[in-house]
């Protein structure tokens, strides 16, 4: 299969997470140019540490969810030459709904929903100038089946999915399309921590009896960015080994 891409420059929001770093490597190997966002010096160091041999093949930009000045500065830096967006950004706040701190709830929704709408507005208007763009939102199966304590996380993911889906409907005719990927248990980040906390028992509920790998996620997103996947628009793809489809 010959995978081709319409464009080269891709912005990776939440660029310091393991999945984003894995994707960045895959993109670079496919001659794409990732721009990874970070929100702390520690995150910036993580990027530098993960991609030492590729320092001329990627860029970085500061973005802090909820910080509108950082968004403006990021796009001043990125400019109008942007072909792809892959959105891994998501704050974490675990609490039972009836225990959640009110101020934290408002802050969480502002950072993870309202601010994302502003990001999409900025990205959409940037891509509209070229009438071309591809956006991938990395959601979670928690959007469909949250565990107790994941109410806000699930709400943030579902609301963000709605933003991406609708944008694909609105702008598909102008060459700007969206797709959402919902991974299940993943061998990375919070997923790995959770699996370890549960001593692997949770994987017994997955029909394939294992977690989704970072490599699988990175390669799937790369495919979703390719020309071959262009007709996958305004829709959700679940990648969970069958987890959410069993009784």
């Amino acid at each position, binding site marked *: 299969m010959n995978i081709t891409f319409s464009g080269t420059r891709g912005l990776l929001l939440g660029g310091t997470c393991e999945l984003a770093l894995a994707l960045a490597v895959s993109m670079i190997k496919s001659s794409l140019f990732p721009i990874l966002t970070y929100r702390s010096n520690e995150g910036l160091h993580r990027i530098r540490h993960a991609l030492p041999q590729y320092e001329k093949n990627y860029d970085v930009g500061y973005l802090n969810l909820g910080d509108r000045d950082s968004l403006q500065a990021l796009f001043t830096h990125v400019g109008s030459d942007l072909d792809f967006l892959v959105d891994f950004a998501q704050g974490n706040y675990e609490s039972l709904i009836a225990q959640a701190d009110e101020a934290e709830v408002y802050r969480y929704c502002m950072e993870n929903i309202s601010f994302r709408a502003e990001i999409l507005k900025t990205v959409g*208007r940037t891509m*509209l*100038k070229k009438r071309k763009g591809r956006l991938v939102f990395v959601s979670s199966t928690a959007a469909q089946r949250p565990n107790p304590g994941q109410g806000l996380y699930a709400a943030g993911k579902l609301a963000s999915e709605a933003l991406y889906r609708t944008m694909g409907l609105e*702008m598909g005719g*102008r060459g700007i399309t969206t797709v959402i990927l919902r991974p299940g248990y993943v061998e990375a980040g919070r997923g790995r921590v959770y699996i370890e906390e549960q001593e692997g028992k949770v994987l017994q509920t997955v029909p394939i009896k294992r977690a989704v790998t970072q490599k699988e996620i990175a390669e799937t997103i790369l495919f979703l960015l390719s020309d071959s996947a262009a007709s996958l628009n305004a829709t959700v793809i679940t990648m969970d080994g069958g987890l959410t489809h069993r009784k």
Partner: protein
Amino acid sequence: MDTLGEIKKIIMELLDLEDDPITPDTYLIKELGAESIDLLELAVAINSRFKIAVKDEDIFLTRFRLYLTEATQKGMDNAPYIAGKYPHLTNGRIAEIITHISEGPQLKVKDLVSYITNQSKGA
């Protein structure tokens, strides 16, 4: 700068118009059939061409009817209330829009020119 000429060029390109039917009094939505996605592209193009900040809801008079309702609810005169919301529109133009508002979307090409001129002054 010939703002009207530039606007006409942008509209003709975006709406794929071959002839030049556009005058300052042309209705964008009623006559040219511009849809919301066309207006979005137009806003982006105006921002890019004229280097001005464009607030879509203001340049396209999106909330005009809502502001009329607000004025009524607050017991205020319509025209001055609208003038406060859309400083780029003249009193005459506001009166004209209010008179014809029941006939459909009133946005005209000259309203875009007024907005750009007003924003350019503030730039």
